[in-house]
């Protein structure tokens, strides 16, 4: 009965929602979304059909007025973001990407820069989720605490950061995004287009990216983004992209979100370091074992009983 009612209003069957995976460690998720595995549903007949959701922004569509209009949200979220979600689902249904997380789909279809068709839609879904959560009503102002300390350390001052971020957003020719990221990717990602391969780790960096590309593909942890596709600002600002960027910085940025993401990024970096240490120790222990065994075997030629 519930199923037919759901079918009658055109929404997908929701006979059960599997959310067993817990927090995926993604930086994009706000605390209250933590335990949702968004894309696995169990259909009534027991068939798993992956379906990426269109998530609403964490505020009403008019909540950012007058800085970002309701009309913009109706198109930007209601049409553009929705289309990326719908088109992605059409592209991945029945393929091996079907049951993967959104982040995994992005990394797989980025394909080291040789983009596969679902990349554009997958990355844009992620980017827009991340963008809505990068803003809040009554946003703007300055960060504080450790985040501000890191900004001062890595950009000289808050103003230094703001100038660099604004410049990146203004000079992303064509469509794209500007980002504040936490770089802690000591690994060689082997990607020729990593924009900051030589930068030290555990630092904040501003980067920009074209079209749908995002810093996940460079193994960075995004902390903040601004959408500089024209559809993001044209209804409110027309050609005046610099005014849009200033308004974003002064009135919309959610430093709470940035803080939360920074904590998650640092935790992940620490985990990764521990894991590497653990593997290194394991390897060294194994090597020591092998060496010991060799020595033992060499010194007991006359006694075969211990040999394999």
């Amino acid at each position, binding site marked *: 009965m519930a199923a037919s009612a759901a079918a009658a209003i055109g929404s997908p069957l929701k006979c059960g929602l599997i959310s067993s995976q817990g927090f995926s460690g993604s930086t994009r998720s706000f605390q209250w979304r933590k335990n949702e595995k968004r894309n696995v549903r169990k259909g009534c007949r027991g068939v798993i059909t992956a379906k990426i959701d269109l998530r609403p922004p964490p505020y009403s569509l008019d909540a950012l007025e007058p800085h970002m209009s309701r009309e913009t949200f109706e*198109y930007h979220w209601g*049409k553009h973001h929705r289309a990326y979600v719908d088109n992605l689902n059409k592209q991945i249904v029945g393929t091996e990407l079907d049951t993967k997380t959104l982040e995994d789909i992005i990394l797989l279809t980025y394909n080291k820069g040789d983009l596969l068709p679902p990349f554009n839609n997958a990355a844009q879904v992620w980017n827009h989720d991340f963008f809505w959560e990068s803003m809040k009503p009554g946003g703007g102002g300055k960060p504080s605490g450790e985040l501000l300390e890191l900004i001062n350390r890595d950009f000289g001052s808050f103003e230094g950061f703001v100038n660099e971020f604004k410049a990146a957003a203004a000079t992303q020719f064509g469509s794209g995004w500007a980002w504040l990221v936490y770089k802690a990717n000591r690994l060689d990602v082997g990607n020729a287009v990593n924009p900051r391969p030589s930068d030290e780790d555990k630092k904040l960096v501003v980067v920009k990216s*074209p*079209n749908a590309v995002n810093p996940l593909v460079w193994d960075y942890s995004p902390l903040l983004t601004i959408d500089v596709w024209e559809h993001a600002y*044209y209804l409110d600002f*027309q*050609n005046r992209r610099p005014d849009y960027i200033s308004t974003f910085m002064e009135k919309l940025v959610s430093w709470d979100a940035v803080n939360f993401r920074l904590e998650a990024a640092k935790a992940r970096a620490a985990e990764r370091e521990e894991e590497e240490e653990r593997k290194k120790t394991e390897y060294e222990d194994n090597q020591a074992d092998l060496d010991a065994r060799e020595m033992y075997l060499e010194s007991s030629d006359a006694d075969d009983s211990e040999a394999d």
Partner: protein
Amino acid sequence: MAERLSLPELPYDYGALEPAISGEIMLLHHQKHHKTYVTNFNNALQQLEDAVSKSDASAIVQLQSALKFNGGGHINHSIFWKNLAPVSQGGGEPPKGSLGNEIEKEFGSLEALVHKMNSEGAALQGSGWVWLALDKEFKRLLVETTFNQDPLVTKGSSLVPLLGIDVWEHAYYLQYKNAKADYLANIWKVMNWNYASEVYEKECP
């Protein structure tokens, strides 16, 4: 000193392409977007001359993307204004003469060409242009796309633009919003095939 670029005048009033393209868009597109490309190109050119006179290789290299982007923007939009015409001045009238024949030969029909250009325009991710190009070396017509403000010639030095459709969002957003396909369908009503024919006949007399 190299000659500075200037904003070409629009060959018709801002509202003359309505209802296909609104006067509001034409005004912004010409007086803001195109003008900005011209201004920024001239600035970059000035900086380039300074860098060249100082033999500052690093500065010369760093200026390339600004020159390409803004110079390309000027080139592309200068063609675009000529590609369009009010209905009263022949906008939308199908091509006749040798270009019309060549289109039928190459694409089967004008409808097929329009369909192809619209599909490629719709499929273009991000910002760019879709072109009807003449390969003057092989004397063949083809449909090509370029990203951002890359001029057609970046896709082949023998390519000559006959028609270009701007599919940057600024070209249609205020009127069509996200409905890019509607913009593409409607722009053909003000397409200036006379210009395309002139260019074609000059290269293929």
